[in-house]
């Protein structure tokens, strides 16, 4: 869906429309998190009295998504480059990481980080940090495959042209291959982040007080699951919509070939 992008004047340049959309969607997201309690407070029972809780749960969900999402991009990039490395131990390590993470349930990973990891290394992370770590590591494995596919989709001639100009392998990756592969990888990366936002609800099992946890608590206290879960789901839907608006704007900007 085109959404915000189509609202701007036709005379604006691609970059300007893209910037405007990113700014507008980001401002909307911040305002939404900041002011959510007010409209919710005027909602009827059982939402109104729990408005502040819902707002707080939403903030935690967004924070969790942002922290894990950023970590996931960095981890994904490293694992993608690792998987394409010539040096076998690095390649095997990256392959093992992707294979094991994608092959096991996220719920098990969240529980593992919170309950089992402290038995192995002498560090006890908070519930929030444990969830962020598990989610970041999880989405990183999926990101790695998206980024790897993007890198491999860049024609070999691009590398040959860059190398024959004297660019080093690192410069070739930084200035020629990566910008092109990022554009190719963006749609699947957005998919992953949207999935991450929703999967952050699994933090609930280790006691993180995020949006789904709040929903469950409120319905347990009021015995009114229908309005409570409709409200909970609606907030998720609004969040994912804002996310896709921002990513759509980035994609639009990178589309210099103007296919859209």
């Amino acid at each position: 869906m085109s959404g915000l992008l189509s609202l701007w004047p036709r005379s604006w340049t691609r970059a300007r429309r893209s910037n405007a959309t990113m700014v507008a969607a980001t401002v909307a997201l911040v305002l939404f998190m900041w002011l959510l309690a007010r409209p919710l407070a005027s909602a009827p029972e059982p939402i109104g009295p729990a408005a502040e809780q819902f707002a707080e749960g939403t903030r935690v969900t967004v924070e969790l998504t942002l922290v894990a999402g950023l970590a996931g991009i960095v981890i994904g990039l490293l694992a993608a480059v690792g998987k394409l490395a010539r040096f076998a131990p690095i390649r095997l390590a990256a392959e093992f990481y992707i294979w094991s993470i994608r092959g096991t349930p996220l719920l098990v990973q969240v529980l593992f980080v919170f309950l089992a990891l402290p038995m192995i290394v002498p560090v006890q992370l908070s519930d929030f940090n444990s969830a962020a770590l598990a989610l970041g590591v999880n989405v990183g494995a999926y990101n790695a495959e998206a980024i790897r596919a993007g890198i491999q989709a860049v024609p070999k001639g691009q590398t040959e042209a860059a190398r024959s100009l004297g660019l080093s392998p690192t410069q070739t990756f930084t200035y020629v291959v990566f910008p092109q592969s990022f554009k190719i990888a963006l749609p699947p990366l957005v998919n992953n982040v949207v999935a991450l936002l929703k999967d952050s609800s699994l933090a609930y099992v280790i006691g993180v007080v995020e949006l789904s946890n709040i929903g469950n608590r409120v319905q347990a206290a009021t015995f009114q699951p229908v309005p409570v879960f409709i409200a909970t789901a609606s907030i998720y839907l609004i969040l994912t919509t804002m996310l896709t608006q921002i990513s759509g704007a980035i994609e639009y900007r990178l589309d210099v070939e103007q296919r859209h």
Partner: protein
Amino acid sequence: MSLVHPIASLPDERTPLIVAEGVNKHFGSAHVLRDVSTRFYQSEVAVVVGASGSGKSTFLRTLNRLEKHDSGRIVVDGIELNDSTKNLDAIRREVGMVFQQFNLFPHLVALDNVSLAPRKVRKTPAEEARRAALELLTRVGLEDHALKHPHQLSGGQQQRVAIARSLAMQPKVMLFDEPTSALDPEMIKEVLDVMKDLARSGMTMIVVTHEMAFAREVGDRILFFDEGRILQEAPPAAFFDDQRNDRIRAFLGQIVH
């Protein structure tokens, strides 16, 4: 500038810019280069011709190590091509390459395509690199297209940007790998004209092409590749007008020119 190249008359008194000696290359079981030996001199325009699969493009690509040769020696400007990345980086800075498929960077406008390598490899200040890039785009007649992305340019224009991009590194020699083979007929001339200008300016050029008129007009020497070997090296007049080799005569007979 003078079109006269003294190489033809005094080949042995000059230091060759590129020496290839007994170069062999396999792709799996296919023996694509067989003991190829030749020399290229300063300001010479060497035109490499031959049928598809004769090894001419592969040979060109070994000269800046886009393909590794299996045995033999290749020395460019006194530096031997081997596994030393230091040697390789030094050589690639001196050897420009123009590809059949242009290989412009699609995410960068023409100006940035041209100025990227000088900025990152030669560490030329951005403003100076831009100015030099604009000059080069002017030289290939594309100053009005400097801020366009490759997809907004025709094939001929893209190839001219690609030539400007290679020239920006001020190479000592330019390799052309079938530079007009992917172009519509009406765009071939504009690219060949740029190449002729370049030859006139004294640039050392090695050109793989099927454009026999260009080879005859601009070439100082024709190298004919056949089954991975150099079957013949000759000046254009002898090659085209006094060809004794039946195989080459048959090849020339098939080329429409």
